[in-house]
């Protein structure tokens, strides 16, 4: 993780160079020489510096940042021991207690709001709006921190969140400071007004983030899940939203503002909120938030991948937007993330989306339909369609032959050959064992005892030799028309007949 952070910092400095922020420039030397241990801290300092420089005109943003700074530091410090090894219970405990503290803060805030709302009924609208802005900004900052910390608690996503939360925070705040409505969107950076700087930054961040996570050649590897390739929305007819990497990778996207519990769906969150008080039980609170009474035509929303250079990124020449947040999530995980889920059956196929793994596992090992050309198919009819299409292709049959027939047939091979030779010898020499038998047949058991029934000598018994055939005619017989013209052996037969 640490070495990977390096390019991040580099490009970060570059991007800040581009904008020529003196304060950062002056720090650069020191910064680069600094050890990895206080890395996160350093970045944070930079960021706060940057933030101050950048958002100086915005009091809300500054205010908030200064308020959060100590906590951020605390957070990064708490994280530090976590970095060398994968999981440290102590760090986890730290994180948890931090979360607890945060949640308490949040609770206090909300209590405050509740209290204020009761009081401010008589005040002017102006003050009301101002207060609301302040509180929502505070709230958002806390929520974001919660997200990042919560993320760091989970091993699967920890590396994506650890040191970048401040950066994302920066982007968030930037967006929020200019657009109070952005709060309701929470995680989304709107792409409509003059937020060039923020946009650029977030692009850079996206790029860095992805560089950390996955190699670039994965880029166009897999077409996205949704079929919006054919969708020809004229550019500008839709609103482009770009989620940040952390938001994409966060296990939950909707968080309870009171207890911090995360949810995958907003509806679930609303259901959850009912438990926090009667005010959340009103039909208005339970209604879908986007079903606002505003009758103006809703602008179609499309999404951009934060990965710079990706076809799904809005700066790409042939940008193709993603339709839904789910598409963004799947696209991002599939294309720009490590494939962490390995199929337990074949141990070769890897996936970054767990649903893909499950789909694969359903069919894994069933790719048994093999063509002579080497192509495999999961279904017989697909193989047969392939064979029908190509001249000379046939289904391949696995080489391993059914057990049981191998051994005996092989054994039979040598045994049989010698048997036939022996047989021929018998015929040629005109040996007549039957005669011998006949003479020794005073005891019926003797009749076949000499031949023995051991497995080894079955051949001797089964090919019971009989008088030599001088005439080739009698050496074979034709069924029905066949001969079976053995020379009459009545005399010999009578011999055995005497037994009676």
């Amino acid at each position, binding site marked *: 993780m640490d070495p990977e952070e390096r390019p991040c910092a580099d490009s970060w400095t570059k991007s800040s160079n581009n904008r020529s922020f003196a304060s950062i420039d002056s720090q650069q030397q020191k910064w680069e020489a600094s050890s990895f241990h206080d890395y996160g801290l350093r970045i944070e300092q930079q960021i706060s510096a940057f933030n101050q420089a950048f958002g100086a005109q915005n009091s809300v943003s500054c205010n908030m940042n200064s308020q959060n700074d100590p906590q951020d530091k605390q957070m990064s410090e708490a994280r530090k021991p976590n970095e060398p090894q994968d999981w440290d219970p102590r760090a986890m405990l730290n994180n948890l207690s931090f979360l607890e503290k945060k949640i308490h803060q949040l609770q206090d805030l909300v209590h405050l709001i509740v209290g204020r709302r009761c009081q401010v009924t008589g005040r002017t609208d102006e003050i009301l709006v101002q207060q609301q802005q302040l509180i929502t900004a505070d709230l958002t900052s806390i929520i974001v921190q919660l997200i990042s910390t919560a993320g760091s608690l989970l091993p699967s996503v920890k590396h994506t969140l650890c040191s970048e939360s401040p950066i994302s925070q920066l982007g968030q705040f930037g967006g929020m400071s200019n657009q109070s409505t952005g709060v309701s969107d929470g995680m989304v950076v709107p792409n409509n007004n003059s937020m060039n700087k923020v946009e650029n930054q977030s692009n850079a961040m996206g790029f860095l983030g992805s560089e950390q996570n996955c190699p670039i050649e994965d880029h166009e590897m897999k077409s996205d899940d949704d079929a919006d390739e054919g969708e020809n929305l004229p550019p500008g007819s839709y609103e482009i939203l770009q989620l940040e990497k952390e938001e994409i990778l966060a296990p939950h996207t909707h968080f309870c503002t009171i207890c911090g519990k995360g949810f995958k769906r907003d509806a679930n969150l609303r259901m959850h909120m009912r438990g926090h008080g009667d005010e959340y039980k009103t039909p208005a609170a339970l209604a879908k938030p986007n079903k606002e009474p505003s009758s103006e035509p809703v602008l179609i929303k499309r999404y951009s991948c934060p990965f710079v250079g990706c076809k799904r990124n809005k700066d790409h020449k042939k940008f193709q937007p993603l339709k839904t947040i789910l598409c963004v999530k799947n696209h991002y995980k599939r294309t720009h993330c490590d494939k962490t889920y390995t199929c337990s059956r074949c141990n070769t196929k890897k996936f970054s989306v767990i649903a893909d793994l499950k789909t694969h596992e359903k069919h894994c090992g069933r790719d048994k339909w093999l063509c002579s050309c080497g192509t495999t198919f999961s279904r*017989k*009819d697909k193989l*047969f369609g392939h*064979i*029908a299409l190509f001249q*000379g*292709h*046939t*289904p391949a*049959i696995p080489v391993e*032959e*059914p057990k*049981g*027939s191998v051994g*005996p*047939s092989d054994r*039979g*091979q040598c*045994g*049989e*050959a010698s048997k*036939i030779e022996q*047989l*021929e010898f018998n015929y040629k020499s005109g040996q007549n064992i039957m005669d011998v038998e006949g003479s020794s047949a005073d005891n*019926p*058991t003797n*009749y*076949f005892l000499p*031949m023995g*029934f051991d*497995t080894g000598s*079955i*051949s001797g*018994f*089964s*090919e*019971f030799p*009989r008088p030599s055939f001088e005439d*080739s*005619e009698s*050496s*074979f*017989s*034709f*069924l*029905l*028309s*066949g*001969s*079976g*013209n*053995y020379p009459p*052996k*009545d005399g010999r*037969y009578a011999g*055995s*007949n005497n*037994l*009676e």
Partner: protein
Amino acid sequence: MDSSPSTSILILLTEDLLLKIFSLLPDDSDRKSFRSTCKTFYRVDAIRRTHIRVLRPEFLPSLLHKLPRVDSLDLSVCPRIDDSAVSFLLSAAAPIWVRRIKRLNLSRCSGLRFRGLEALAVNCKNLESVDISYCSGFVDLEAAALSRSAELKELNLNKCLNISDVGLAKIAVGCPKLEKLSLKWCFDITDIGVELLSKKCARLKHLDISYLKVTSESLRWISGMDRLEILEMVGCGLVDDMGLHYIGEGCPSLKVLDISRCDKLSSSALSSVIRGHNSLLQLHASHCFPELPMTVVHQLKDLAKLKVLTIDGSRVSDAALKIISENCRCLAEIRLGKSKVRDEGIMQLVSGCVNLKALNLTCCSDLTDQAILTIADSCRDLISLKLECCNLLSERSLNFLGSLCVLLQEIDLTDCSGVNDIGLKYLSKCSELASLKLGLCTNISDNGLYYVASNCLKIRDLDLYRCSEIGDDGLAALSHGCKKLQKLIFSYCGLVTDIGMEYLSSLEELSDLEMRCLPNITGSGLRNLATGCRKLSQLDVKNCKNIDDSGFWALAYYSRNLQQINFSGCAISDVGLCMVMGNLTRLQDAKLVDLTNVSVNGLELALRASCARLKKVKLLASLRRLLSTEIIVTLETRGCKIRWD
């Protein structure tokens, strides 16, 4: 041979003439006598001979060397064909005869595996026809081996239960010249396989998909096969009317269609087929409909060329038969088994169809002598008539047949209680008779058999099942008259004794004998039979309790050609069983149930002695645990099917 007159005759008889004479001998046994006469005749036979069916493969190479024109080889009755036998055959004389072989019958060669088959397919480059029916152990590997012979035109895969679509695909791709393919009872083959077949084998003329679990989808693909002339699809229970609509619109060359026992079909299916194919020669639709629908009957008018019509199991009205007789003038064969036709219907039918050669009226128990009279009167060319279970018929019917249908070759009178000695006397005027079935005709006696035996000298197949009045004298008459007799059943004719068996022993052609439950026959009777009937290949002596080991010893010694035997319920001992099973090297099928005098060890020894060649064996289920697993496994790996009773 060494006398001068005979030599001079041979000088006169040039090879051309001899060949001409030889070509006038259609019967195998006559040809055999011919070639046994002298070396010259043998040579004539040898240069004419194209087909051999051998019991002993070990002599095959030298035999094929002597018979230069043989291109058809039947190994189906060889008990011991396996991969090593094939490699032995091919190594001995590969270059000489192998290229000549065009037809190969490997039916029931269950010991063979893909290596042997592949060797045959690769070496016999001109192979055009292969039969591997009833090799139920064959899997796709064997099919793949077979697909190496690219010239293949005919292939029979009947009852290759384990060949699936993959095997079929191998064959379809490897043998594109296939013209005839039979897939009966290949239960693993589905629509997918048939679809591929239709795409790859465009030259198919004859296809049999009977009893496959295919749907109408298969028929959709089959309907695109332009050259298909014969389509058999008996018992395709998943095919519905849609499938036959496809056939009606496609298959432009269709001549023969068999949709018997396709339960899902309605009359509209048959209608659409008839509408599409007016030049159909044969239509088989037995057991499809409980009653032949009139819509179909009216459409039968269009089938002016129809020669064979099978509607067993469907009730047919008199009006329907009238329409058929008025329109299908070419009809040569009609099967109306269990169709409940009455005299009027038959009269309507034969009034138009005077060319009828084969008529099946099994279980039409309403028929009287009147119907037979009209049949005999109108259809003088009748060759085959089946009247099983027509109980109202009396000796008068046989009188009409005997005096009018002199060409009759086959008649089935099983369970016709009206048949008596006088009737047989009338019938015996049909001197061409080759097959006569009199099972359960309890009113016939030795006298009746005497008439038959003295006049019907060509009889090959005679069934006297449970004709309890038949005794030794009847068999004596048979053995004097019917020298060509090959198949004889006289089970439960309890009067027959050892004397009768002695008479039978003079029937040299006898190959198939069923004589169950004859208490008066002892070991000496069987001994007489075995010494005389050397061609015996199938013998059923079930429940002949008094045959002792002496009889079975004789059997073991003389009946070298025996292939199938049923000893169940006999008094055979361990020694006798081991003798028979070990010594009869051609034995392939043995039923060994209820052998009270045989110990488990004896049975085990007998099975060990014969395990290399047995293809099928029936044993008591309780023996499954008592016999050693070794022998059971050995039997099964050699391709032997064990039926546990």
